[in-house]
């Protein structure tokens, strides 16, 4: 029988290795799956590369990994969210390296890994600072840059509901990067607000199929209010 639910956060992130590339879902600090991100502190994993849209909020989640010196590199589009002081300090000191990638290119590079593609050409960043050093090709008279897949060792994502197969449904704007990260990692872990019995989802309304999800853990939404819980 398939049952992807695990008992607790420690079990959810067990086995994360030094040097792992960790995909952290959500769009901003406000919907980062901070319970899972912080659970990495229960492992010994260091030298992590974090792939996310931003760099986390003031204290919880990614910020706590940075403060505990677990992170050596961040790949993101927007390293400037209000309150991202932990990152700002580590960036200035040189402890954390930064790769800034256009937001759509991050999700497309993740999808390329998920889909078994070897890379793709995009016009985005061609002729700009972020395109410097990238292979460029003229296609139909326009410059395109070549982009490589980003494959995660682990994806930490948040969803609203799951069943025991790991099928996921997201709520409103909280879908964002979570589905593509679920597809792009060797091990995908989802924290969800609620487990539902198998068969609860309408077959045409599952957002992320369980085939992409390895572990599910229930985290009460109240634990996740990063603004309220310091």
């Amino acid at each position, binding site marked *: 029988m398939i049952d992807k639910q695990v008992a607790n956060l420690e079990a959810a992130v067990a086995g994360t290795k030094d040097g792992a590339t960790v995909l952290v879902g959500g*769009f*901003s600090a*406000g*919907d980062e799956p901070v319970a899972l991100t912080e659970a990495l502190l229960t492992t010994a994993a260091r030298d992590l590369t974090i792939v996310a849209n931003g*760099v986390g909020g003031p204290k919880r989640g990614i910020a706590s990994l940075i403060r505990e010196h677990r992170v050596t590199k961040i790949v993101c*589009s*927007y*390293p*400037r969210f209000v309150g991202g002081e932990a*990152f*700002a300090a580590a*960036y*200035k000191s040189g402890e954390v390296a*930064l790769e*800034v*990638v*256009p*937001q*759509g*290119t991050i*999700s*497309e590079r*993740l*999808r390329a890994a998920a889909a078994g593609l070897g890379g793709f050409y*995009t*016009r*985005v*960043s*061609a*002729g*700009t*600072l*972020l395109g410097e050093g990238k292979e460029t090709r003229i296609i139909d008279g326009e410059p395109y840059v070549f982009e490589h897949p980003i494959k995660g060792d682990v994806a930490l994502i948040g969803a609203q509901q799951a069943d025991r197969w790991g099928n996921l449904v*997201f*709520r*409103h*704007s*909280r*879908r*964002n*990067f*979570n*589905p*593509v990260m679920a597809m792009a990692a060797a091990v995908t872990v989802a924290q969800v607000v609620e487990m539902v019995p198998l068969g609860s989802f309408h077959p045409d309304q599952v*957002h992320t199929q369980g085939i992409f999800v390895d572990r599910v853990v229930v985290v009460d939404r109240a634990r996740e209010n990063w603004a309220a819980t310091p």
Partner: protein
Amino acid sequence: MTPLSRQQIAWRAAQDIWDGACVNLGVGMPSLIPNYIPKGREIVLQAEVGIIGMGPTPKPEDADPDIFNASVQPTTFLPGGSTFSHTDSFLMIRGGHLDLAMLGAFEVSEAGDLANWNTGDPATAPAVGGAMDLAVGAKAIRVLMDHTTKDGRPRILARCRYPLTAAHCVKVIYSNLAVIDVTPQGLVVRETIPDLDFAQLQAATEARLTLSPDWRVLEAPALS
């Protein structure tokens, strides 16, 4: 002469958005546009986070924390509004499916080059977000900006000084002094605010301007 307020710039830009247009609104001034869309026009607003068909900003007590826009501000769904993944969102953006992106700008060049993501300050990490995707992908880019810096230096330039977001993408500039079209023949002034003559506008602009034969005065309602 009184330069337009941020609200008045947003009002002016909103008047040119046609019924049925699918539009992405950048952060800052563009985010004020929904307040000024002329009645009777149905505009479909999209945001990078994976939402389309956004309605008015809710009152704080009515806000659903799971319905937010690309500025992570509360928003609402109009009937017909929906959500999707980030990959689909940037497929929309990059693939030319948006009629318009209304963006802020640090600088615009006379060729329509856009600089709106990086001031070159080495002390802060550069943050691109979805700016390059939008600049390259939307069918047309229109920018909302102050005509000059706070200390009066031009921001509409012969060539951009800041790192580019994308080349040759801006089609219309809504500034606090004028409405300017970017054309193959250069920058053409379509409207100017009351009591501003062309020489004054040119003096505040590094790029060479020409006056449209259809030039008119920009009469904005009082807004602040």
